[in-house]
């Protein structure tokens, strides 16, 4: 019996299911984060999935307790109790996902005509003899010319080092992988031609293994960026690095090693070899880009924040220590400015804003939030220091999006309803929950428009001279310390959301646009994907527009890296965008300070000439 192919949506991940492997076990092996609290016993009911096509084993005795007969008919099953009996396509609903995976890889899939920078050519060489003792590499180049009318003049030195052995062990039959006029690797026949797209984030690294012949994503996985031990946010990372005696060398290696492991894991899922990866693309913010290449970062953190290089680069993977095909290149998407990097370019590429009728606002929310306004073929970008609050940093009970984090929150009268990641007992609050809390407290008039906690609610207490709102009390946590939102937390959140709103406002003013003209607001990035947009609007973090004008785009940077991986035209587009973008330094924009101060207020309003105009 051959293994069945399982297609997990909406992450868009496909993989083989092994014999006697449940859907849950298969998902785990492939890195699809399906939540399972009971460990696959069929008792916790957290691994609900819906089978869209294909056949699976019959429902076990647990499942009719969980699903109605109608739901069972519609294909709803527990992943841990279900074994495929054919190729299957299934949907993993958000509530069944564990956050770490979903924030790292998920994004909207865009199809593009594959136009990869590398091509593989099948070759059959004549074995050399005493009468025809032509050198191996020359023989190869000649065969390329004769069999494929290709004039290649170069063979990569690392490819050259193993070429003679390869040709002999494959009996003079091979595929030559060619990039421009250079042979970068030899592969046996048959083999994959894989591409690796990397979204190199400050916190996380997402990797995608792509079939270069058709552009399909074959596997995806996310891991933490191990450089985090040198500093969590960009500025502290840079500061941590420049204080090292050999500036950045170990830090560069950390990122490379993480990517090496990631690509090995991704290849293992497909039963492929990392040497079959013949091209890689890396998109990261300017600091991650520089640290990955071993470029100096000191000048990035100091005014006027100048990158060492902005234009797109082709670098030999071997020079960076990446273990993929011997002569393969890593393509680095172009940067825009010191605080607006290739990841933002990738996001603009993936969201296709450049082809759309403007004005469109596209933002990627993180410790630094980059915002672009696209209008009449012009692109203007700012970077806002939104700080770590929305990633749980500087917040008393804040945490990253992991099991037990409160990710959704409602306040209705005196009761609080919340949802935690993995439906586990609450241990803290993550970005989307923090945003909900701010908005719900404001809407319930527990904090005023200035952000002050008002003493009018039984859950408001004073602790160590500071007011706080109790989300989960000590009693509700069986004696463990209460989870609260403090006055200081609210101040941090106000600064964070004001920075973002100010960025949007400055762009609108610089382009003479009014808020109402915005046709679409695209929110990318892990945090942006899971926020409740209505709550973000209610506190004035985002402009007060009809909700149907907002679009949450997932990991658009990763999607953009994938597009650049498979399409040379997309690379040209990226370079064109990056050189066309007008970068605006937020702090030096007119009205910056007045706008920022107004944007600290909560509520729905327009900002006109640094003044606030409330919207009912």
């Amino acid at each position: 019996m051959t293994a069945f192919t399982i297609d997990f949506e909406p992450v868009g991940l496909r993989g083989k299911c092994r014999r006697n492997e449940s859907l849950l076990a298969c998902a785990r092996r492939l890195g699809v984060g399906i939540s399972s609290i009971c460990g696959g016993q069929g008792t916790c009911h957290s691994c609900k999935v819906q089978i869209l096509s294909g056949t699976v084993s019959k429902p076990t005795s647990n499942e009719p307790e969980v699903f109605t007969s109608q739901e069972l008919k519609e294909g709803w099953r527990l992943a841990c109790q279900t074994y495929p009996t054919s190729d299957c396509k299934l949907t993993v609903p958000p509530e069944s996902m564990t956050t770490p995976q979903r924030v790292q890889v998920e994004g909207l899939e865009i199809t593009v005509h594959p136009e990869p920078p590398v091509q593989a050519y099948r070759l059959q060489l004549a074995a050399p003899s005493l009468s025809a003792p032509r050198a191996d590499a020359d023989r190869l180049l000649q065969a390329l010319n004769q069999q494929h009318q290709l004039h290649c003049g170069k063979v990569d030195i690392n490819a050259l080092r193993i070429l003679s052995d390869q040709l002999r062990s494959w009996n003079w039959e091979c595929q030559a992988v060619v990039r421009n006029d250079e042979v970068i690797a030899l592969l046996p026949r048959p083999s994959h031609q894989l591409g690796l797209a990397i979204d190199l984030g400050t916190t996380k690294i997402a990797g995608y293994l792509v079939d270069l012949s058709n552009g399909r994503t074959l596997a995806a996985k996310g891991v933490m960026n191990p450089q985090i031990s040198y500093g969590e946010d960009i500025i502290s990372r840079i500061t941590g690095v420049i204080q090292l005696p050999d500036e950045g060398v170990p830090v560069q290696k950390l990122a490379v090693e993480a990517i090496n492991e990631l690509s090995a894991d991704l290849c293992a899922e497909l039963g492929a070899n990392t040497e079959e990866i013949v091209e890689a693309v890396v998109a990261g913010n300017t600091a991650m880009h520089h640290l990955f290449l071993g470029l100096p970062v000191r000048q990035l953190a100091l005014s006027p924040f100048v990158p060492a290089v902005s234009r797109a680069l082709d670098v030999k993977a071997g020079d960076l220590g990446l273990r993929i095909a011997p002569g393969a290149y890593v393509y680095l998407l172009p940067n825009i400015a010191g605080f607006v990097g290739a990841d933002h370019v990738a996001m603009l590429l993936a969201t296709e804003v450049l082809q759309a009728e403007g004005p469109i606002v596209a933002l990627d929310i993180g410790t630094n939030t980059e915002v672009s306004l696209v209008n009449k073929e012009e692109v203007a970008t700012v970077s806002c220091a939104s700080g770590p609050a929305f990633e749980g940093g500087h917040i008393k009970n804040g945490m990253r999006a992991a099991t037990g984090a409160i990710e959704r929150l409602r306040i209705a009268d005196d009761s609080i309803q919340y949802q935690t990641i993995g439906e586990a007992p609450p241990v803290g609050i993550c970005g989307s929950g923090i945003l909900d809390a701010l908005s719900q407290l404001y809407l319930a008039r527990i904090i005023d428009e200035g952000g002050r906690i008002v003493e009018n609610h039984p859950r408001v207490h004073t602790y160590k001279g500071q007011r706080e709102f109790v989300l989960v009390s000590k009693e509700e946590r069986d004696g463990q310390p209460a989870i609260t939102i403090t006055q200081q937390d609210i101040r941090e959140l106000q600064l964070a959301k004001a920075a973002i709103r100010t960025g949007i406002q400055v762009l609108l003013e610089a382009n003479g646009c009014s808020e109402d003209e915005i046709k679409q607001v695209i929110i990318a990035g892990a945090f942006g994907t899971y926020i409740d947009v209505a709550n973000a609007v209610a506190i004035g973090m985002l402009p007060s527009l009809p909700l149907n004008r907002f679009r949450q785009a997932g990991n658009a940077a990763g999607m953009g890296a994938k597009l650049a991986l498979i399409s040379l035209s997309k690379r040209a587009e990226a370079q064109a965008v990056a050189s066309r973008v007008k970068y605006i330094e937020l702090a030096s924009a007119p009205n910056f300070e007045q706008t920022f101060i107004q944007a600290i207020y909560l509520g729905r309003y327009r900002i006109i000439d640094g003044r606030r105009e409330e919207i009912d």
Partner: protein
Amino acid sequence: MAGDLVSTLADLKEKEALGIVQDRLSAGDDPLSILDDARRALEIVGKRFADSEYFIPDLVYSGEILKGITDMVKPKLAKAAEVKRLGKVVMGTVAGDIHDIGKDIVVFMLDVSGYEVYDLGVDVPAQKFVEKIKESGAPIVGLSGFLALAFDSMKETVEAIKAAGLRDKVKVMIGGGQMSEEIRKYTGADAYGKDAMAGVTLAQKWVGAK
């Protein structure tokens, strides 16, 4: 009566505060005592800010109310009785750093506390500090910086002041971001302030000591 203005202004009740000032001026009250009450109210605002009770917009608003009050009081002030300034302070965010919000808050607090502040803005080269100290004769210098990289600029600025022969004529305070005694030593400054109120307290100490 006097308590009214202090608490009303501290609670940021603009209309009521201006009303009280109007009443007191009509009643022939001493304009200087009105300004003194306003200053005490702003001190409370500063404390509430330090306790997170008030926030940046509240500070700005209190400044606007104060301006309204001084506009009303000024015409009544005898020419000779110009508002007495406690001392001069040169302030700026050091070279390489462009964070201004923290620095602006300190400038504001010093201003409402009665100091004449020369705000040099952000990304200020060391030499500009030196020139302003010479020109103004200010005995206090405040160096602001958020980035850890700003510590080097602070050190360079203190050294430039020294090289210009001004080091024993001024007291230097640093603030912003993660300040500590270690950083103060590294930069060669005289003191560090953990928040805006600490900056005001330092200035008071130094001016009083003169």
